[in-house]
């Protein structure tokens, strides 16, 4: 009996090791593939500069729309321009980082449809890493830079008494937000194993999500805010941390400490997305669709 337990424990340890090994392998493979795409992008520097600037200009138009609104009103949902710019910056940077890292995942449906996913399955590295790093587009830095500029402007002009907690929460929330968006990308891709034409659905949550987060929660219907808090927890990207930093009332009257939960929420989202991915890949491998 004791022997049997020991053996189970031993296999569990190797199982955990294997899992860790897979993560390390995945990160390494991601780095290799992304590195190759970056090198290839850098072979055409002018083209890279132009597309990055294009990416920057496109996303900048988003913010111009908000500026235009503020030429008519003084506040949106009670939030003045600097505070909306703060929301905008956090959303844009979080999303931009996720989009830069694994934005290519939305093409998974096409890979499933045309069968090129099979070519990834015969390589000795995790499929998720290969799909995520495929066509790694450094030009997407344009979006991140634009978000950082708006965020920088907001940080300079918002009327906030900067405590250590407030100052620390900004970078933590940015990274957690990127994690949450990454989880959404992965979960949406996992869904495409089942419904290969669902890239529009995934766009609704990713691109749609970041656009929604650029505006204060108060301008949206209560049910939408509830959905964005408890179902697809995008509220943890910026609404909640920003409410704490800016001293605004929390949406849905949530308790104050939730502003510090984004890292936990991001970790939980990534774990769930990972499970969804594995389920999706397993169903693909049993059906071949």
């Amino acid at each position, binding site marked *: 009996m004791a022997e049997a337990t020991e053996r189970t424990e031993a296999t569990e340890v190797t199982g955990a090791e294997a899992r860790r090994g897979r993560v390390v392998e995945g990160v390494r493979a991601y780095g290799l593939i992304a590195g190759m795409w970056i090198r*290839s992008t850098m072979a055409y520097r002018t083209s890279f500069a132009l597309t990055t600037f294009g990416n920057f200009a496109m996303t900048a138009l988003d913010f111009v729309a908000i500026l235009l609104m503020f030429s008519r009103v003084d506040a949106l949902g009670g939030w003045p321009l600097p505070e909306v710019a703060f929301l905008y910056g956090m959303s844009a940077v979080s999303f931009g980082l996720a989009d830069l890292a694994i934005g290519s995942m939305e093409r998974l449906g096409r890979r499933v449809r045309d069968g090129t996913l099979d070519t990834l399955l015969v390589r000795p590295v995790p499929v998720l890493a290969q799909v995520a790093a495929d066509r790694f587009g450094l030009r997407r830095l344009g979006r991140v830079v634009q978000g950082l500029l708006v965020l920088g402007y907001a940080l300079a002009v918002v009327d906030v008494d900067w405590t250590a907690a407030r100052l620390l929460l900004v970078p933590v929330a940015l990274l957690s937000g990127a994690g949450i968006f990454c989880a959404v990308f992965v979960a949406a891709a996992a869904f495409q194993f089942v419904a290969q034409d669902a890239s529009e659905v995934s766009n609704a949550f990713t691109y749609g999500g970041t656009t929604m987060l650029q505006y204060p929660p108060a301008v949206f219907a209560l049910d939408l805010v509830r959905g964005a808090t408890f179902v697809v927890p995008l509220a943890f990207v910026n609404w909640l941390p920003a409410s704490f930093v800016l001293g605004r009332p929390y949406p849905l009257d949530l308790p104050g400490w939730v502003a510090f939960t984004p890292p936990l929420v991001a970790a939980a989202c990534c774990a769930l997305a990972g499970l969804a991915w594995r389920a999706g890949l397993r169903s693909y491998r049993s059906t071949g669709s």
Partner: protein
Amino acid sequence: MAEMAKTTRTTQADPVTGAEASAFIELDGVEKVFDVRKKTGFLKRERRQVRAVDGLSFTVSRGEMVGYIGPNGAGKSTTIKMLTGILTPSGGRLRVAGIDPSRERTRLAHRIGVVFGQRTTLWWDLPLIDSYRLMHRMYRIPDARYRENLDRCVELLQLAELLDVPVRQLSLGQRMRGDIAAALLHDPEVLYLDEPTIGLDVVSKAKVRGFLRDLNAECGTTVLLTTHDLQDIEQLCSRVMVIDHGRLMYDGALDGLHEAGESERTLVVDLERELPPIDAPEPARVVRVEGPRQWLAFPASASAAGLVARIAAEYPLVDLSVREPDIESVIAKMYAERAGA
């Protein structure tokens, strides 16, 4: 079904003992069942089960070169996908180099090479050499080994001028050669090729076949290839397996297949003018006459040379061509025979 396959084997070596001594690929009653859902009305769906592979059993020894043929939808690609770990079998036992492919896909990946004729494993928008460099790191191929293998492939597959060309600009034949090289950089023990010559011109086909033959002879790489082109099999494989409806119909030498299928080639001759049917020597016979053009059928195992010489000597010949028996009709004949027997 397995028994039937065994009895149709015509190779001299005892297939059972010979295979068990060094079985590299082992399938025992492997099944793959797909659930196909069909819309039959608003929100109404009919579920149907399709047995793509239905109790398949065979073994392949190390160093063998096996052709795997059958009509479209016979289960060829499904078998390859199970052997590579892409698909999980619904039943039966499957081992490649002692590894269960679907459970240890990434471990197996280091030991196998795969070429899909219809889709590339190369990175489409990048120069060929970038894909190879990435394979080098991804498979953790030792530097010396990588350079040696790459040099050999570049030389034998004539890739030197293509290395800096983006894959999407390569012709089909060039891309296929590039894909084969990519599959071999990590010294796989077995190479699976799914339709490696599909869509290639005669010259490209010859290059690919020559390379595969040398690879098998020199490196002892086990090769399993699916194809529609009987010539691939003729020139490469000592053993052929025919699959239809997910079952093994035949397993043995190619000659045996021609006998089993009584396949015939067709000689098409254009004469100067309309003439009565050519008086052809046995066993050739005229099967169709249309104006000055006549069709003659003769056994696939026989040479066309004598027949052509005879006709050229006795008839005002303008042009001629030989049509190979297509695998589908050979198998259809075999299948009909089996059903009748």
